[in-house]
């Protein structure tokens, strides 16, 4: 007897339809799985046998062949357990074959017959809808996630016995309730921050113009606290952005049980010891890295100089293209990686250069080495540079004077609307040629810029950076023209060397 149904195999972020064909034929008892199944797929045999036994089903002691077409697509993971089990029950004759028409299933089986949650249910559900599935059966814990896809019937199974009863028409599976109306969790508010006026302003500009940001300051100055406030300043997630974020988290297996749509922008803060695959994605079976988990959100790199050079190199493609490509022998996978970068660094290796409370103990040589590590390709993509100070006791105990996130976000949204009508993209994403077109400045502003080139050693890159930032400052002020004071504010947020090298070198 032959039974056919369908499931999905995750390749990167997208799930590909995979058929599940189960045949029980004559011959010595054996189970063969064909179709490029990985280790976890082949181990399904043992899990299935135990799950059948512990559910009280008789294991068909005949020759069982399971095929997973297309045969040339590699398949990984334990999500094939449930569809194979359904196919076995059908092929053993306890279910009419027509019951499996248009049926999709995904899920892992425990030895006790329980159906366990798997990763990638949301991409699988999207694939099922694209293929016109009649019904998708998922683990009960993934039901909310699967129900995110509109126009698709889904059902949740908690045990194999439940599935068997449903196939025999004795009971129904769990059906999704109305979409849970989870309130958007409150964001961390800018009003919690005391002092740090310039840093707060830089966050506003970064949010308004999609500029990347570097915070320097001694340990404990509140760099992380500031960075955490950026997601709340960005515009709310659109429906398709939210779906994309949820999809990445699903593919990475980071969605908790009963997790619905992710409604807030992600904030990812990987540790500086992270490997390159951990950062940009990779692995034998490509899985998304931190840059993709930060997609549509904020990637925070604390202690930037401690990240390996190769990790910083690897960030280049996502920063420039908004996605990462992971190439493997069998597949090439693209992950979305469009994020706002916030990096933080101590001013020197010991962290106390310029600190009023502790003397800096670094040798000049160490400062130079540190400075060279704090330059390079990554910082070429950073527009805004802010020094963050340790707060004084007065500031710590004084009244909170900061504007709340909601107020700042309103300005950010207005500035973003201006940019969309003018150029269709955020200022931070303008190419050099576009900067010349959209960032025209007034004559006094140009004079200030030229003076900066002359006296402050502003490079060509720094010049364009200042123009982009000044454009955003003007947009925040609702000004069509970029005036002198906009440029001046942009210049106070420019890249500063760690040490005044020329003087340190010679005199």
């Amino acid at each position: 007897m032959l039974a056919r149904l369908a499931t999905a195999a995750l390749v990167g972020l997208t799930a590909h339809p995979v058929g599940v064909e189960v045949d029980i034929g004559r011959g010595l008892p054996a189970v063969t799985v064909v179709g490029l199944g990985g280790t976890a797929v082949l181990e399904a045999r043992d899990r299935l046998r135990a799950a059948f036994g512990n559910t009280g089903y008789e294991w068909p002691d005949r020759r069982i062949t399971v095929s997973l077409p297309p045969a040339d697509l590699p398949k990984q993971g334990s999500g094939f357990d449930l569809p194979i089990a359904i196919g076995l029950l059908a092929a053993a004759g306890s279910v009419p074959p027509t019951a499996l028409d248009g049926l999709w299933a995904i899920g892992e089986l425990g030895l006790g017959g329980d159906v366990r949650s798997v990763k990638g249910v949301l991409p699988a559900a999207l694939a099922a809808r694209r293929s016109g599935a009649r019904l998708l059966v998922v683990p009960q814990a993934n039901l909310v996630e699967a129900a995110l896809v509109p126009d698709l019937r889904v059902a949740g199974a908690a045990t194999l016995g439940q599935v068997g009863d449903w196939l025999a028409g004795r009971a129904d599976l769990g059906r999704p309730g109305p979409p849970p109306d989870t309130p958007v969790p409150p964001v961390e508010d800018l009003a919690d921050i005391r002092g740090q006026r310039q840093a707060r302003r830089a966050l506003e500009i970064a949010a308004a113009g999609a500029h990347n940001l570097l915070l320097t300051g001694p340990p404990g100055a509140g760099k992380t606290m500031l960075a955490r406030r950026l997601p709340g300043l960005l515009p709310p997630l659109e429906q398709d952005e939210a779906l994309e974020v949820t999809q990445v988290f699903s593919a990475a297996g980071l969605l908790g049980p009963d997790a619905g749509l992710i409604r807030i922008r992600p904030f990812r803060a990987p540790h500086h010891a992270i490997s390159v695959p951990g950062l940009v994605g990779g692995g034998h079976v490509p899985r998304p890295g931190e840059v993709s988990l930060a997609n549509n959100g904020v990637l925070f790199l604390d202690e930037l100089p401690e990240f390996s050079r190769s990790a910083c190199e690897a960030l280049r493609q996502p920063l420039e293209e908004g996605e990462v490509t992971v190439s493997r022998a069998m597949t090439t996978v693209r992950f979305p990686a469009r994020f706002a970068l916030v990096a933080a660094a101590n001013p020197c290796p010991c962290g106390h250069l310029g600190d009023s409370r502790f003397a800096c103990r670094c040798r000049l040589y160490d400062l130079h080495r540190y400075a060279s590590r704090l330059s390079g390709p990554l910082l070429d993509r950073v527009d805004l540079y802010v020094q963050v100070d340790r707060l004084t006791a007065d500031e710590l105990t004084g009244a909170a004077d900061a504007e709340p996130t909601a107020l700042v976000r309103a300005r950010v949204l207005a500035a973003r609307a201006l940019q969309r009508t003018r150029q269709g993209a955020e200022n931070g994403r303008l190419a050099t040629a576009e900067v010349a077109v959209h960032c025209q400045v007034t004559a006094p502003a140009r004079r200030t810029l030229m003076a900066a080139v002359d006296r402050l050693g502003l490079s060509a890159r720094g010049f364009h950076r200042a123009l982009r930032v000044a454009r955003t400052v003007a947009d925040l002020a609702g000004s069509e023209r970029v005036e002198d004071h906009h440029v001046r504010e942009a210049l106070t947020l420019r890249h500063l060397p760690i040490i005044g090298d020329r003087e340190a070198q010679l005199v």
Partner: protein
Amino acid sequence: MGEREVLLSLAATPGPMPAALAPRLGEGRDPASLLRAHSPDPGSVAARLGELGVRLLAPGDEGWPLEATPPDPPCAWLFVDGPAPPGAAASVAVVGGRRASPLRRAAARSIGAGLARAGWCVVSGGAVGVDAAAHAGALDAGGRTVVVLGCGLDVPYPRANTGLFARVRAAGGTLVSEHPLATRPRAANFLPRNRLIAALAAAVVVVEAAEDSGSLSTARAAGSRGAGHVLVLPGAPWDPGAAGCNQLIRDGATLVRNLTDILEELAATASLAAAGPDAGPGAGLTTGPGIGPRAWSGLDPPARAVLTALIDGQLLTPGRLAAATDLPSPTLDAALLDLELSGLIRRTAAGIQAITLPSPRVATAPSPAPAVTSLPARTVPDPEARGPPGAGRSRRGA
């Protein structure tokens, strides 16, 4: 082996500190008995020295500069690259730290130049920071300068100053060292080196000295000859770069405020007639009298407030500066950018520092020598002086 050959071989022997060997020679030990198994052959040493144009000077030789002012512990020989140093009677040492503030480095440069114009040879240690500034100042003024190294004369250390050393040689200056060729710059070499700097000069001008700094050891070595030999630029009590300076003054060293003070003191202590007050114009220093924030008539009040807060030369973060000046942030940012664009302050990721202070405009008396009174604020160093392309590589990423 003749006496000279033995000395050559002994001086070129790597290992024992020269400063430790000299007293034993002084006790009348036979130099030959101090030779080691690995002491090099005098012939090859002489050949290598000849190749580099380096001589070995010993007490009694013509041009031995330490006859009148023997250091303690004594010095048994000097490797000399260039003409023999003029000795204490005609030299002044200028010392300070490697990480001195820009203002103090500018002061060192100005003092180096002023001393050179007054006919003094400027002695220092060739380190980055104040030392380099003092040497460069002397060269700017076309004067003589002596660099006392703590490593072998053929070891390019500090690398950033190799260009400066080339400039010293080209200008007829001298590099000296107690250490054999190829000696690495070990930390232990520098304290003995400092006693040589003190011994080679009539007085030591301490431009900057943090607590427990090398400048302090040089000053103390000079101070053993009398308090009048240590001239110190004071600083604010809370300026870490002046902690050693103020300590020296408290211990009896002579406080100097400007070049005039220095030249006056030198005339009093030294026998060199050329160092009389009429030898050079009284080049003013920022620390000179009458320079207060009220004299900076060309600046608006916020800019004056910022410069006043930075007057000790310390590094302040924008937040500290805001607290010190009590200026609202937008005003402060505007003032900072104006000051930066006028080249008066410097911003780094670590904070803000004054580079120079504007010269005061005294309405009644026109400044006698404007070119000299103002600090070399925008001095563009000779391309040569920036060091080789590798050493002076700019890491300014902007």
